[in-house]
């Protein structure tokens, strides 16, 4: 059992750190640096291929950050799946016989898929984009899994592996292609910006949905023995 002095000293330390952070934030707030970024963004928005500034920043001006983020997601999915100890990534205990849930899913799943597609498409000129659409796809998959529908595309195999890396692969390919062609890494050719952004976003949506779903599905641990590679 921890001693009271340990508790008190931890509390004091955290309060001190928080006070330090608060003072830093307060002093930074008094300091108006007059950031150039919003103005630069507005001037170059038309050249980026999309009209919504956040999407333009994510997929064009700072696409390197997005590329690395997708790489982090793929790595997390790989680690999560490697920990899975189920044979089929489907827990039979979770199958419900709830007729109401199944009946509701008949309406929900197509609507949610449609909403995901809309969010992806709307990301070009209004709030939306690949991440929100990918989250919607993952939520649909989670709902299906909670009802006990078998998610065959999540069995360890070729389909799963392709789906997980597809977004990252296309992104990297586009970047390398422009680097090989003599431009900077990840610089889109001017006429093709919109098409490239849309195709990258589509594959990113699929990948993100699959990654989040695989991380959710690989969490259950049961007493199954080690799954064999490629077992269907």
């Amino acid at each position, binding site marked *: 059992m921890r001693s009271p002095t340990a508790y008190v000293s931890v509390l004091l330390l955290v309060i001190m750190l928080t006070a330090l952070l608060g003072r830093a934030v307060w002093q930074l707030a008094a300091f108006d640096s007059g950031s150039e970024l919003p103005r630069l963004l507005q001037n170059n928005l038309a050249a980026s291929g999309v009209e919504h500034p956040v999407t333009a920043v994510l997929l064009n001006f700072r696409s390197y950050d997005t590329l690395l983020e997708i790489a982090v997601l793929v790595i997390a999915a790989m680690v999560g799946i490697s920990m899975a100890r189920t044979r089929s990534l489907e827990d039979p205990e979770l199958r419900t016989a709830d007729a109401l849930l199944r009946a509701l899913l008949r309406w929900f799943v197509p609507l949610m898929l449609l909403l995901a597609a809309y969010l992806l498409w709307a990301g070009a000129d209004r709030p939306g*984009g690949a*991440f929100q659409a990918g989250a919607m796809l993952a939520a649909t998959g989670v709902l299906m899994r909670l009802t006990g529908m078998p998610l065959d595309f999540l069995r360890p195999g070729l389909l799963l592996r392709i789906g997980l890396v597809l977004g990252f692969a296309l992104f990297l390919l586009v970047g390398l292609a422009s680097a090989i062609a003599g431009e900077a890494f990840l610089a889109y050719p001017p006429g093709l910006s919109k098409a490239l952004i849309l195709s990258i976003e589509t594959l990113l949506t699929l990948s993100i949905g699959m990654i989040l779903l695989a*991380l959710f599905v690989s969490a259950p*641990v049961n007493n199954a023995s080690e799954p064999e590679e490629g077992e269907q």
Partner: protein
Amino acid sequence: MIEWLLDLLLALALVSTAAAALLSRDLFRAVVVFIAFGLLMAVCWVRLQAPDLALAEAAIGAGLTGVLLLDAVSHFRRGNSHGLESQAEEEN
């Protein structure tokens, strides 16, 4: 003036749900309050004029994280036979 009141109430609600999520004895209740915290964060992002963040926080922060944690909590409950004892040991 009304907006100021809304912002103040929202900030207070954020801090109190965060504290309640960490201090609550029952793990299930802590996760449910955390989901509420996620939804309040989504409203915060709307107040900060960031609708993309509000969409992402509502879908990911409240929805997916909540389901993930609830699944984990139910698994711990199922597998743990020392109900009251573990709760007494979970105290801060």
